[in-house]
């Protein structure tokens, strides 16, 4: 039972990170039907910025949690700037172009950003400081769920609650939903659609950066290539849950996290990816639009 719980919480932690990144994919897709393949790179850049900030802070003698918060905030700001610029230079000029063009542009930006970090930093794995301390009160349950997992879970839950409030309750959220449902009509009721699209990229990037910082300090190393794998997994989560659907992204992320965790724990960690992607295939055969996805009728 304890082993089961350990796997359960491990899966939950992984899954919530996937969900954070998947939200960025799904929100952008919901609004402009673009798979933003460079999204994983924003996650990676977030982790790198945090690493640099952490390095500087350590020189000035700051301690664990304060570094984590500071690094997180700066990483989020940086990632937002990258996300905004990405949309502006790579996708906005292609608005109205056939759907494949921005997709290629996205792949191009992904490769560009990877290589940019490769050149600016290094191809080696860099050690990332363990910023999340072990809390004493977690001691009795530490073999089931450790302090880093707890911090990751709490952070993602808070982030998701804030995101939900933003989308459900604010004027901006309303404009985002309207843009998603009918972009041209949103324009006609006075919504500045370009600004809403920029904002969607900014929010998605912020979520990815939060994910990047959490994962890097949990796993303890970063490299220019981590964005690719995380991106693919999160994209899988978004598709699994039904791309375009926000609860779907969260749900898909959790399903993916658990599938990996249980497959690794009960069968073999060599096969965890086989099981996750096998699961993806099965779910897509049974529900082509994803678990919570809606079949969109194409207007003819």
């Amino acid at each position, binding site marked *: 039972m304890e082993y089961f719980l350990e796997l359960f919480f491990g899966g939950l932690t992984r899954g919530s990170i996937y969900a954070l990144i998947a939200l960025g994919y799904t929100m952008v897709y919901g609004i402009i039907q673009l798979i933003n393949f460079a999204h994983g790179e924003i996650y990676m850049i977030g982790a790198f910025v945090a690493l640099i900030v952490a390095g500087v802070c350590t020189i000035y003698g700051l301690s664990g949690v304060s570094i984590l918060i500071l690094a997180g905030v700066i990483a989020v700001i940086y990632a937002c700037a990258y996300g905004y610029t990405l949309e502006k230079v790579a996708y906005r000029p292609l608005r109205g172009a056939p759907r494949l063009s921005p997709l290629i542009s996205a792949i191009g930006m992904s490769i560009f950003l990877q290589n940019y970090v490769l050149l600016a930093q290094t191809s080696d794995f860099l050690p990332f400081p363990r910023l999340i301390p072990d809390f004493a009160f977690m001691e009795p349950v530490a073999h089931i769920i450790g302090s880093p997992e707890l911090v990751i879970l709490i952070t993602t839950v808070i982030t998701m609650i804030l995101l939900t409030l933003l989308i459900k309750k604010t*004027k*901006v959220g*309303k404009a985002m*939903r309207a843009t998603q*449902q009918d972009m041209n009509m949103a*324009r*006609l*009721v*006075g919504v500045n659609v370009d600004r809403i699209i920029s*904002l969607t990229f900014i929010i998605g990037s912020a979520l990815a950066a939060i994910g990047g910082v959490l994962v890097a300090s949990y796993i303890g190393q970063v490299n220019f290539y981590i964005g690719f794998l995380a991106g693919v997994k999160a994209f899988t989560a978004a598709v699994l849950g039904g791309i375009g659907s926000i609860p779907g992204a969260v749900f898909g992320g959790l399903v993916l996290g658990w599938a990996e965790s249980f497959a690794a724990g009960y069968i073999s960690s060599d096969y965890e990816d086989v099981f996750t992607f096998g699961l993806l295939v099965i779910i897509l055969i049974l529900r082509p639009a994803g678990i919570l996805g809606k079949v969109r009728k194409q207007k003819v």
Partner: protein
Amino acid sequence: MADNKHKLLEVKGLTMDFGGLRAVDSVTLEVHEGDIAALIGPNGAGKTTFFNCITGIYNPTKGDVLLHPKGQKTRRLNGLKPNKVTEMGLARTFQNIRLFPDMTVLENVMIGRHCRTNSGIFRAIIKGKGVQEEERQIVESSYQLLEKVGLADFANEFSKNLPYGAQRRLEIARAMATDPFLLLLDEPAAGMNPQETADLEQLICKISDEEEMAILLIEHDMKLVMNISDPIYVMEYGKKIAEGSPQEIKDNPKVIEAYLGEETDA
């Protein structure tokens, strides 16, 4: 048409080409304060294209779209983005219903009101005191609008669950929410049963009486058009072929020909 009425919308020689096809051919049209003007014509005459040119969906090939808001300087609308046109004070509805289906009735109206508020993105997220007050006012005025069109009881329903006639009325309410001084209605009575059409007629008259909004509508229901609108403009094959009062239009041989075909001595 009385000359002392303030001219709100002035369209001069509007032309729209799609490749070799001239969908709208130098159409000139005016809407005055307090008017319920109508644009009629057979299917494919270019009426909706004309609307699309005015509201910024298309950028017209030639011609001018001028807006003369009362007490403000004249604005040229050509080439503006739709959200800018809406800000200038033009609002429209569509032939086919284009509500936001997964939003509530109230939200559909509120989103129209937002373009009249000043608070930017960050203030909206932080939700300061001023923003909350503004939000409260928006909710209140949105409710008033819903009452006006008779939908207040449905405020928290998803708009996709409303009956057809109610969805049409909601579209009008949403357009009105942007606080326009000219309301463009594209076939508001399309697909309505006689009772719903009669309700709509009342609603349009009520809007015209109570709000400071002129109305320009495209409509195929001749009974409705003849009952409420003056002046009437008639289009065929992209050209304006007639304009005048309902009686003048009824008696105009060109209009009869466009609708019924040429008379033959048989």
